[in-house]
């Protein structure tokens, strides 16, 4: 086991040597880069990284440039998990055969994918990797939409959101389906550690990433990634929107250990109405009309219900 990195304060954390360079093509205000830096800076260990096709991938490895100062691989949209699992298998093989070039170092294996690559097209591959128990961390950059291709719905898109393939219109309020519960699904794999994080709550997030790195086996991190372009808010408001998301409990922060013990890791001092979170984003603008307003109440009920469920599980220690 390598030593867990000690992080005193945000200033020290934000000025750590970067293995993910600021030189990238992500939108100004994109939460992806904040999340990636928080994951990478949570450890001093070597990193072997993968990314599925998506915003992060197309914005950070455009030949002849790379934003990555750690080994990194991209194959396709659906198989970032398997790419890093293959590398991890090779690490084990070469370790067993005594052929590692730096045998005294223990790299961490991390795959990044958007919600399209995670909830939808790459789901089977992730499930396979988790069932096989590869020693890896999978981080979903969850912006609830196919942002890279211009805002199509995914199975992470929440109800009532307007997307290009589920647009709001005269007779439709946009997305009809509830967001898929990936946290529950990944926990059901019996993964040693599953956690939902938000980059604005950086201490909570880093603690979870470090717990994940300390765990043996596959770890799933669902990271809320507020998307200035598709959620339609000003680029400078990323953290403010993220605060609304966690303080309204739309994105509750919690962890599930070994698939059997749930802990809530952040309880807002003042819980904000869901209406305030929805109202701050253009993707929900149409809900603030007479025709579709009832959905805002439904949203609030759903969030309350989920929060109640999480609390009951925590109390029961299951």
């Amino acid at each position, binding site marked *: 086991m390598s030593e867990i990195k000690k992080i005193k304060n945000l200033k020290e954390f934000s000025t750590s040597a970067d293995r993910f360079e600021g030189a990238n093509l992500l939108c100004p205000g994109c939460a992806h880069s904040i999340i990636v830096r928080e994951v990478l800076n949570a450890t001093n260990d070597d990193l072997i990284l993968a990314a599925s096709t998506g915003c992060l991938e197309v914005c950070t490895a455009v030949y002849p440039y790379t934003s990555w100062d750690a080994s*990194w*691989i991209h194959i*396709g949209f659906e198989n970032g998990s398997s790419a890093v699992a293959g590398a991890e298998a090779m690490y084990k093989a070469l370790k067993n055969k005594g052929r590692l*070039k730096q045998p005294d170092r223990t790299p961490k294996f991390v795959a990044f994918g958007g919600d399209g690559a995670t909830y939808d097209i790459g789901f089977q591959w992730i499930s396979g990797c988790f069932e096989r128990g590869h020693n890896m961390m999978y981080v979903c950059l969850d912006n609830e939409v196919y942002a890279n291709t211009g805002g199509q719905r995914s199975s992470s898109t929440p109800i009532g959101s307007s997307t290009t393939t589920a647009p709001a219109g005269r007779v439709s309020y946009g997305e009809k389906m509830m967001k898929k519960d990936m946290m529950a699904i990944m926990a059901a794999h019996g993964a040693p550690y599953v956690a939902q994080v938000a980059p604005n709550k950086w201490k909570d997030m880093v603690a979870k990433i470090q717990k994940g790195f300390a765990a043996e086996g596959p770890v799933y991190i669902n990271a809320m990634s507020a998307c200035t372009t598709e959620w339609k808010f000003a680029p400078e408001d990323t953290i403010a929107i993220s605060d609304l998301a966690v303080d309204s409990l739309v994105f509750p922060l919690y962890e599930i250990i070994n698939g059997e013990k749930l802990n809530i890791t952040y309880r807002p001092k003042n819980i904000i109405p869901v209406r305030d979170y929805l109202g701050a984003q253009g993707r929900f603008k149409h809900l603030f009309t007479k025709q579709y307003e009832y959905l805002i109440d439904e949203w609030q009920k759903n969030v309350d219900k989920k929060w109640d469920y999480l609390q009951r599980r925590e109390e029961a220690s299951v």
Partner: protein
Amino acid sequence: MADTMELRDIEVWDGNMAASQALRQVQVDVVAAYPITPSTPIVENYGNFTANGYVDGEFVMTESEHGAMSCCIGAAAAGGRVATATSSQGFALMVETLYSASGMRLPIVLNVVNRAIGAPLNVNGDHSDMYMGRDSGWIQLDAYCPQNAYDLNFIAFKVSEDHDVRLPAMVHQDGFMTSHTAQGVATLPDDVAYNFVGEYKPMNDMLDLDHPVTHGVQTEEDWHFEHKARQQHALMTAVIPKIEAAFDEFEKLTGRRYNLVEAYNMEDAEVAVVCMGTSVETAREVAEEMRAQHGIKAGVVGIRVFRPWPLEQIAAALKDVKAIGALDRSSPHGTVGALFNEISGSLFNTDTKAVLTNYIYGLGGRDLTKAHLVSIFTDLKANADAGKPTTPLQQYIGLRGPKLSFF
């Protein structure tokens, strides 16, 4: 440390066992695989070797063929020897990642036990999957029997992993006809087999922690063309000499001779068939009989290296005959067979006067009998004598019901 397996000089192996034994002997670091008929026994045999201490690499049983090749790519990029096996529908599921593997210049050996592609679903051998792979940027070697399936694996690893090549390689064998047909296979002792291929020498390996590397970048109209051109350059210039050198070295080691194009009775041949897989051996036997019983100077050209296509060698082997039959074991779906096309392209700028016709045969594992070949050679002789096609350009052979032909 993996245990050594004591082998007899000649073992009775089917093609699947021959391939599994080769994978074991070259001490593959990561095998990531998913079972599919008829290549399943390759994976099962390898699992058995692993369970009994004969393998000290990782054996990853994935959730699909796409996942298998994805893991292989990650493992190869990490820096070690990688192999897998598949067939048919599984091959089709892998196709996206086959292009990734070759485009990322990663040496991986894929044993393809050839099988038809549905619909209708069919588990038997034809060359549909092999043909599907022909634009994927992989080296494709073709075995005609279990001995070939064993030997060509060593060639595949040696060439694929060469730093001048760094391209993945397929070893093809015919489903059931080779994969499940036990024959005598001359073996190599474990150490001799391993030493022929040699130790894996990593390049741009992700696990070299002091030298981080980015694999699988984005390129658009500014660089994509140059990358594909470099890939083609390596496939076209580096591979053939390396395969020939490996064939020479292998002959010195074993006495078994392989060639890019396996020409049989072609020195004075008047008519020739061109084919792949198990059909080559049947055609050779019939060619002998055509000479002995019918006085027809018949020859056979077997394709040993399907990609890169040995254009000059094919042209040299065929340009002096009077009639050629190109035998395609895959539905051409709307055109002439792939071999017919390739041979036409190879001969077009030569001074050949050969008449070239096309036979579609053996789809979904339908037998190619000696009688079929006799009739093909007889057609070819008529074409040779007439100096023009006396039959339709494309004929279906061994099909029930009314005769089917096109062009």
